Every structure is written in C-alpha cells, then in structure tokens.
C-alpha cells in the first residue's frame, strides 16, 4: 500500500439528503484515501448507493460537503467529476449495450481527455487485464454476466481515476469469480487508486478491505479494520442477526 498525503482523499462531510420528506442520509462522514480499499456496508436501504451518487456528482446533498483532495466539489456535475478522477460502477451495470466491448472502454478514455491513439492503447490494456480482450469487437450486450461486471470496472478505469467507487460489483458472480475479482481490486488499489467497495458479500469485503465503514439508516454507524468490525456486537445488531452465517 502506498502512503499518501492525507489531503489526497475523497470525503463526504456531514451529508444529509431527503427525498420528498424521507431521509435517506442523515449525517454521513466518510473519507476514502488514495491507495486504500474501503468497504462500505449496511443493511438494504441504509443509503449506500445514495452516498455513492453524492460522491460522484449524480446527486447533491441537502446539507454537508463533498471534498476532493481538499477542494469543495459539492454540486459539481458528474461528467466533470469523472474527468477529475472520480469513477464509478453501477449496481445495474449500465453498459453501452449496442456498442462494442472495446468502444465501451474507449469512449470513457476519449471523454476524459485521451487522444484516439491513447484511448485505443488504454482500452487494449484494460480489456486484456479484465479478461475481455478476445471479445472486444462484440456488442457489450452479448457478454455473460461475469464479464459484464468486469467490463463495468474496465470502463471506469479507462477514465484513469484516482478514486473508484464500486457499487455491488460482485453481485451475481460465483465464488471463483469473486476470488479473482478481489485480486483485481487489490491490484487497482496498489497503483494508488482509492477504492470504495460496496457489497453484500461480507467475505469479499473482509478479504480485500483495509477499513470498513458501516452505515445504518442513513448514518455513519462505525468504522474500523475488518477484525474490529467483525468483533463488533453493534454490527450484528445493525443487521438484526441477518449475518449469522456470513
């Protein structure tokens, strides 16, 4: 892991957000540093995806601020954040379905300032890395589920991010695929990218994260190392006993 300047972080500070009166977030403080893998867990409806939307410019908070490397970026549009080094994936994939696998990655590189030749080179490298090189000319909609998830990450990486937010990237993957995926996440973090990982697979979270942040009912609930979180009675209570076997 690289030791990084503490000001180099993507942070949510005191975030509140309500949708037609229903409070989705009510006091979240999270800091994602470069080069680390931070797990974000919590029961369904705790506000995990809402928080990712805040951090990536897809939504803006009612209260609180989003800070990127010491700069207040609250209210910046998503495309600007993507060009400034904040990338994400989506729970529901959201691939460019009728474009080729290669084009999915190339457009993200082109849109974030790469030349055509650079975009082509980046795409080739990323598709190789994510095991989609031999399908690069197929439309993205023809990919099997596991590759779809990986293409989503490859596309996000094509923006050359400093921070990568993964919203349930392992959903629907089998055990073997999840193991490989964990390796990929760690290798991405090793290049100095801060990775925020949301997933319901607690084993994956425990295996790859250095710190875990728990949110419950829109609030930051506790944060610690996997061991600290695992030993916490509070976590078990937060999940209301759901997690006994996981």
């Amino acid at each position, binding site marked *: 892991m690289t030791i990084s300047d503490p000001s180099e972080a993507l942070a949510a500070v005191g975030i509140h957000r309500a949708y037609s009166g229903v409070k989705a977030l009510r006091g979240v403080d999270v800091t994602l540093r470069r080069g680390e893998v931070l797990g974000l867990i919590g029961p369904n409806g705790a506000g995990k995806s809402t928080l990712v939307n805040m951090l*990536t*410019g*897809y939504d803006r908070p009612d209260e609180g601020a989003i800070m*990127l*490397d*010491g*700069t*207040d970026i609250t209210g910046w*549009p*998503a*495309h*600007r954040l*993507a*060009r*400034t*080094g904040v*990338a*994400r994936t*989506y729970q529901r994939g*959201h*691939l*460019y*379905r*009728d*474009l080729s696998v290669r*084009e*999915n990655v*190339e*457009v*993200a590189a*082109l*849109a*974030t*300032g790469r030349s*055509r*030749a650079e975009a*082509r*080179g*980046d795409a*080739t*490298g*990323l598709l*190789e*890395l994510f095991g989609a*090189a031999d399908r*690069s*000319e197929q439309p993205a909609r023809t990919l099997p589920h596991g590759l779809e998830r990986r293409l989503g990450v490859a*596309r*996000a*990486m*094509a*923006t*050359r*991010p*400093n921070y990568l937010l993964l919203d349930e990237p392992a959903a629907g993957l089998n055990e073997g695929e999840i193991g490989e995926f964990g390796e990929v996440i760690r*290798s*991405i973090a090793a*290049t*100095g*990218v801060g990775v925020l990982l949301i997933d319901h697979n607690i084993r994956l979270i425990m295996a790859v994260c250095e710190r875990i942040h728990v949110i419950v009912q829109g609030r930051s609930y506790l944060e610690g190392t996997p061991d600290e979180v695992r030993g916490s009675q509070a976590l078990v209570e937060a999940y209301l006993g759901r997690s006994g076997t996981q």
Partner: protein
Amino acid sequence: MSELKTPATGLTVGGRDLGRRRGRSGSSARLATMWTLIGPALLVYLGTVVASQIGGPVAVQGAYALVSLVAAVGLQIFTGTSGVLSFGHIAFTAVGAWAYGLLTIDPTLKKALLPDLFSFLADVHAPWPVALAVATTVGGFLAFAVAPFLMRLNGLQAGIATFGLLMVVGQVLTYWSSIGPRSGQAMVGVPADLPLERLVLVAIGVIIVSWVYQHARTARLLRATREDLTAAPGSGINVTIHRVIAFTISGAVCGLGGGLWAATNRVVQSSHFGVGMTFTIIAILVLGGTRSLWGAVLGTLVWSALDSLLVYLQGGVTLGDYVVSIPEGARPIILGATLIVALMVRPDGLTGGRELTWPVQRWRRRG
C-alpha cells in the same frame, strides 16, 4: 477554488505494446471503413444516373428523392446518434427554403409579389451557391439557438418539444410578411438552378459530411449517451454539449435540404413544411434504420422507388394484353402498409441500423 491535479496514469500490463489494434489488418479495416462512405455515395450517384436516363417524371421524382435524402441524412445525424426523437427538423428545412427563395428570386419579381419585405431582403440577390450556404447557415443557427432549451429533455418529451418549435416556426413563416409572402401565400419564381447533376453532388457532399461527423470524437461520445444516459456522465461525457453539436450540424444539413427543396419545387409556401413532410422524413429514416447513414440512404432509395412505382401504376401500365393500374388514392395506403410490414419484419429498419459492410469480406467468409 484551487485547480485539481489530473488523474494518474492508469494500469499497464507487463510493459507490452498495447497501442496496436487487434483483429483485422490495417488496410482491410480501412477499406471496410471507407466502403461505408463510398458504398452509399456510389449508390446515390448511380440511382441518380438511372433516374436521369429514364427522364420525364422519374427524373423529377429523382430530384425530390435527393432533397429527401439530404433531410433524412440531416435528421439521422441527430436522432440516429443521440437516440433522441425530433419532430421539429422540418423547421430548419423551412427556414432554409425561405432563405434560398428570398436570395434567389429576382428582386423585381420579389417587389411585386412580396410587397411587405424588409428592404434589405427585397433588394438582395445572390447566386445559388451563396443561397445554399446561407440556407445551411440559417438552419444551423436556428438549431444552435434553440438547442440549449431542447437538449435537456429526453424521449417523447424531447420529441414533442421539437414539435413545438415546428409549430412556432410554421406560424411565423405563414404570417410575418416582412420576411415572406402575405398570410400563407406562396413565394414563386425560384430559379431552376439545381438540375439533377448539381443536386447529386450536393447530396454526396452531405453524405461525406455525415460520414466525417460519425467518425468524430463527439459522435462517438454521443452514441454512448444514446446507449446509456445514466452511465455517460460517469464516463466523463457532457451529454448536453454533444447533443447541441449534433443538433446544430443536423439543423444546418436540414437547412441545406430546404434550399434544395426550394430550388427543386420552385414554389415555397409555409404549408409545405408541416406534419406531412416531417413524418415522411421520419418514415424514410425509420424504414432504413435510424442508427446508420446507410439507413438514411437506403430508406430514401426504397421509399422513393416505391413511391415512384406507385405513381407510375396509378397512370396504368400496359403489359402485353393487360393494363395494370391501382386506383387513385391507393398510393398512401400501400406506402403505409409497406411501412407497417417492413417494421414488423425488421424493427430496426432495413439496415438494422448498421453501416454498409464491405461485400468482398462477406464472400470470403462464406467461401
């Protein structure tokens, strides 16, 4: 606010040269790419030669087909690339036709026919290339001016908002006699400067413009927004800007189409540029396949050929001892039914929204 650092270089794989494209060799890929331009252009050229050889009403139909082609290619640049519907592009065609008419009609005739014109419009007179350039500019400018308002909308809302533009423009052109004839009357006396051989060159020029656009960075990014509007901003794509660019180019091409229409029809009247023309162009594009230039070209060709055939049959054709004819008024019924059947069989249009593929490669694959 302090400037943020640009993101670090991404991952690399073992120092290999990753800049090479896999798959087909460079020259054959280039040939296949060029064919997507040359194929449609060649077809349009040959079609025009045939129409011109047959002459008579077929040549006239051919001229109108080339005008439709330009409008369809213009609409395809926006709708095909962005996936956003537009029912308003004929507004750009209308202002293009207006500009062309006002610039080319003889000033003496203009003063008699259009007495209320602004004096600078009454006196101005320009040769056809200048008039076409102005028609293009006016169409593009109008599109650019309204784009920031329209381009924030999606789906059917966007379509209906563009239709609102068509209504406004239609009304202004009908009643504002300082820029045209009095209440809905016709502008006549547009000179016949654009015979088939010139029209076809302009049409091929438009095909080239569209092709160049399709390969530009902005079009590639806009196609991604068409595929997934949620993911596009996350990839760093500013959806509005790329839509505005496409809408402006598209409006300019439709404005040019209006100029061609004025020169071909030689009478310009606001009632021409309404729902009928709007839906004919949309039908052509949907029939061919909205997502490709080839779709716009093939759609125009098939639609126009069928329409010409039906006009021909209405007049009655003698085949040996038989006279084949269709009843008066059956033409729209047959056209409409053909459209329904074609879309049931090929919902993505005749081309499936793909560009023309290089035929040699297909043969090789079969062999």
